[in-house]
């Protein structure tokens, strides 16, 4: 039997890696991928708690997180396509027209 703290630490490590990528990457698709890493870490933590407490609610919530991730990935990629069509680059530093 694996103690739950192992899963929680793994989830935290993955979440922090995703956060690191989100802060440090400049490519928009890489940012979206970092968000997906964070969502997966959260899924892992939910399922760990669900199996530790013997309740099914954690797994139901993972279901909803999956749906939201799908919707967000679809709309995010559509925005990426629109942005690429207009600016020819995916570097977020170059999309600074609103900057003073």
């Amino acid at each position: 039997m694996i103690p739950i703290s192992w899963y929680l630490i793994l989830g935290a490590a993955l979440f922090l890696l995703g956060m690191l990528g989100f802060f440090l990457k400049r490519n928009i698709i890489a940012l979206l991928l970092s968000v997906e890493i964070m969502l997966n870490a959260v899924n892992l933590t939910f399922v760990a708690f669900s199996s530790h407490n013997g309740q099914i609610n954690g797994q139901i919530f993972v279901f909803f997180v999956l749906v939201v991730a799908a919707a967000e990935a679809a709309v995010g990629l559509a925005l990426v396509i629109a942005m690429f069509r207009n600016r020819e680059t995916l570097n977020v530093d170059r999309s600074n027209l609103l900057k003073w």
Partner: protein
Amino acid sequence: MIELLFVLFAAVALGSAINVLVQKHVLYSSLSLILLLTAISALFVLMQAEFLAVINVIVYAGAIMVLFVFVIMLLNLPADEDGVDRLRWLKLLGIPMVLFLLFMVVRTVWKVETDAPAPQLAGTAQAIGASLFTDYLLPFELTSLLILIALMGAVVFAKKDL
């Protein structure tokens, strides 16, 4: 034996997550993310949530990541060029800070006690379906609305001319 499996899948998950961040070309990052998703599905199976593990592969690795890979291939994106790296100090400072944050989490979590043996949970389709369609019916219907809105939004944003 099961600890060995956990260490193996956890190592694959951490390695592919680090690979997502390290690669310059975003296609290799997406392929590493697919590996991460299969490692997390394997960890779900270790926690007796096999229905969710298979759904994770079907939805996330089999559909969402295909969308990512499609967009990368259709836009024909080059590898990120090495320009002026204005974030270099931030990157050097960021890694120790993240490690410090991880250390704080480990210190909090390590003391969680498993005094009573866990009640057995069956992560089968029956258990999830029974709860999803009785207690959580309203969020379920709302997610269908959410997907419809996302569908319309994606089509509108990606059209060439409205």
